[in-house]
């Protein structure tokens, strides 16, 4: 049994403690917004927030989440109001297929928490998620747009 908090809700989950957080979110909790892309912490599709930090959930055993606060893409908007990163993504039409974008948005939201007005160099450093559609220019523009709307 593992106890964790996801999007403000406490859960006790009967699962092998080695199971990656990603699969607990998707399969036990039905939160399929967080995506599987590689399973080896190399692509960022599975990025969620753990105590406010961006974490690649595919390589994070759920047992390590004991007592931590997990936020997924489903929990980023508060009371139906989009987070400013989500709003920027809508404003600038950032996603193409959208598959990587939950992870991308979570990574960017964490960046803006730590660095409210990131420079291009800071963005380069922090945002290493893969987007096979190649939305990178729009992602960069979206980050600046969201930062300006803080």
């Amino acid at each position: 049994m593992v106890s964790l908090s996801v999007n403000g809700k406490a859960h006790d989950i009967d699962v092998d403690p080695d199971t990656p957080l990603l699969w607990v979110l998707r399969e036990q909790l039905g939160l399929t917004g967080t995506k599987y892309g590689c399973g080896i912490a190399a692509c960022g599709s599975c990025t969620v927030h753990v105590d406010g930090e961006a974490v690649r959930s595919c390589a994070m055993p759920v047992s390590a989440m004991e007592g931590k606060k997990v936020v997924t893409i489903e929990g980023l908007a508060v009371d139906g109001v989009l987070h400013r990163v989500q709003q920027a993504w809508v404003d600038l039409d950032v996603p193409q297929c959208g598959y990587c974008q939950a992870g991308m948005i979570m990574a960017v939201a964490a960046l803006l928490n730590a660095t409210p007005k990131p420079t291009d160099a800071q963005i380069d450093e922090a945002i290493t998620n893969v987007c096979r559609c190649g939305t990178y220019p729009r992602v960069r523009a979206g980050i600046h747009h969201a930062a300006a709307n803080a």
Partner: protein
Amino acid sequence: MTYMPQLDRRSFLAGSAAAGFSFGFAIPSSGDALAQGAASGGAAPEVNAWVVIRPDDTVVIRIARSEMGQGTLTGLAQLVAEELECDWSKVTTEFPTPGQNVARNRVWGDFSTGGSRGIRESHDYVRKGGAAARMMLIEATAREWKVPAAECKAENSVITHAPSGRSIRYGQVAAAAAKIEPPKDVKLKDPKDWKIAGKPLKRLDTADKVVGKMVYGIDVKLPGMLSAAILDCPVFGGKLKSFDAAAIQSMKGVRKVVPVDDTAVAVIADTWWQAKTALEKLPVVWDEGANGKVQQADIDKMLAGGLDAEQAFVGNQNGDVKAALAGAARKIEAVYSYPYQHHVTMEPLNATAVYAAERCEVWTSTQNGEAALAAVIAASGLPADKCEVHKTFLGTGFGRRGRSDYVDQAVKIAKQMPGTPIKLLWSREEDMAHGSYHPITQCRLTAGLDDKGNLSALHMRISGQSILAGLFASRLAGGKDPAVFQGLNASGETSLGYSVDNLLIDHAMRNPHVPPGFWRGVNVNQNAIYVECFIDELAHATGQDPLAFRLELMDKHPKNRAVLQAVADRAGWGKPAPAGVHRGIAHFMGFGSYVAAVSEVSLSGDGKLKIHRIVAATDPGHAVNPAQIERQIEGSFVYGLSALIYGECTVKDGRMEQLNFDTYEVMRLREMPKVESIIMPSGGFWGGVGEPTICVAAPSVLNAIFAATGKRFRTFPLKNHGISMA
């Protein structure tokens, strides 16, 4: 305009629910939206196959092609809405199912979504669908008001009759319009009068994507569903000899271990993670066969043999190349090659199937719904009217999802547990081990030049793999694969933009055991590198400006010239670049569009490459949504440059060596150059968008690298030459 994207999923579900499938499953939703959508969608009759208008004026436009990020869904909706004269802010979309298409005599035409054909091959009939619906709405109104239809005007989802001052909303008249006989003579607008099409509108499918609600195949969840992980023989062509199910049977969640055909084994478990974990522990014995001994060097040698082979298929020929080369004042020769590439669709391959003796249904992300349906019919052994495929959005496709191998497997697994829905998901490793690889080729180019440095003869010998031979041998033309010559043909939608007096382009087909497939841009990727880098070599070897040298050969190719000149002008070709920055240029034609690019790069002494800027131009004939075209240009560059810099799949002991992003790197945000796009539709034809521009990224960068260093790279990826991204 401010526009909130509508949800597509609701109406997709509404369509499915309305059709009343026997299993009655619907994919998960966010509660009320589904109920409302289903209720109103179910109540509204369609005006015609393309258009449903609900009483609340919502316009549901049916989209037959798949949406994988390329934006076709929005573009097609724009074309229908343009002719329909509807209020764009009320537009939503839904995917009809392949089964419905079959049942209705293919009223929606082709579902296949590849080759950048989504819009260019359906623009005519979808616009006619919108126009016919508009005419029926007007006719229904005119009959109700007892006035001539010609006196009624439709605009923004409202029909007005000026003489009497009356008006009515589409939602009020849609039910009556549905009963009107469809018009026979449907005229389309002149594109210069477009108000919705041709405009840089935002996508219709964004809202769900930013909140994690968009349902891709991998997200499908059905009541009682189990999950399956699969392992196919890692050696292509190898067989499954045996497996020891007992060894893992007691692992948590494991329900069943099943063979799939005679090549693969799958574990079915409560969750996919359990299935995958158990599969990794399953003892399996393979019969690798002779292919298990094949190494990359063997394949390279096989292809090298083709460069000198007597027999070759001719793709483009004029004059007498042999004689002209023999008599040339100067001869220049170079050999290039391009490695296997993998699609690495962002969403790993998956399909969810439920099979019972009387019915089989599949939910999946597919680029070809009808091919997926055919696979379900074949694998289930059930008649067509007992099978159905529900298309979800795709987490990219790039050509890989045109194949239905994973659908076939899902059905074969589900068949071994009748009545239970089973989601088959390939691990990333399985995906990379069983791709439809971008084919491998080598190319020798031999040029003859006269004493003034004019190109008088060109022989381009391609040796390598044929996609058609691997996938659709029946489409070979007398053994020849015409697709090999993309961008090299004498005429047509993928023709060579140069006139050379003595020309021979031929192909010695060499098919290694690795399965080939269509990969974004297909054969224009390497063909553009071969032609455009070699032309650059010729210009430099004869001391000519690469742009001027090209233009000399392009008198008969005004559209190619126009895009080339456009990028040269915008980039400031011929003017000094910033200090340390060097330019390269390239152009090509693919998928019906003319494209060109100038790249600006710098390269440090220790091999650190920076691509500063790429100026790109495309003439796709008609630009249905310029904002989305810009995004496709940028995205295609990321895809093409990822391959150029990092991409390579190599064979060891008959299997692929690269199995995940750690060994198959792709570009990240920090490597992304600034892209400036020039969209210059010249009208009169319909070219593709998703793929054409991919082919100019690599050669323009390579030519810029030559300008910077004097080094000509002819084998790829660049990482093998000690180049990394700054």
